[in-house]
């Protein structure tokens, strides 16, 4: 019973994070939410009995991918400031 409630909270927040990351216009906010999404996804996979995959997702998916995207978002934000258009 408690486990089912746990699962429901886990999934609801995961989907909320995904929607928030996909609908945010500002690049840096989107990347931040994407990193949070990756960390949460690692948590879900740890719950599903896949600690090895969770390890890889946290380190590579959220960590490395997030850092790459953060650098790109920094450039995009600067370009948006300069041109005023969407970056």
């Amino acid at each position, binding site marked *: 019973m408690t486990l089912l409630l746990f699962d429901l909270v886990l999934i609801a927040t995961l989907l909320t994070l995904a929607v928030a990351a996909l609908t945010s216009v500002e690049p840096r906010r989107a990347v931040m939410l994407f990193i949070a999404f990756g960390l949460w996804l690692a948590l879900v996979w740890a719950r599903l009995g896949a600690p090895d995959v969770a390890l890889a997702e946290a380190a590579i998916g959220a960590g490395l991918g997030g850092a790459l995207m953060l650098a790109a978002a920094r450039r995009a934000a600067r370009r948006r400031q300069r041109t005023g258009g969407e*970056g």
Partner: protein
Amino acid sequence: MSTQLLYGGAGVALCVLGLWAFLVHRPLLRKLIAINIMGSGVFHLLIALAERDGAPPDPVPHALVLTGIVVAVSATALALVFGRRLDEQGGVPEDER
């Protein structure tokens, strides 16, 4: 069984959300985030299917997902470099977008 169904459904929902955002949004970074979330949905579905209540999970989907994560990050990095090169050359002409 219900665990598989619950988490598998979440994976499908993630995949659909990512596909929708990939089709709708224009900027490169948002498209990349969308395609990454779409891939995460597929991974999530695989992990959910590998789960067997109580018993140790099926290792083959886990191996597939491990490989997939690395490939997804490499593809993202390649796309970001392409985008940067495009910017240096002045961007895409308006009529070819």
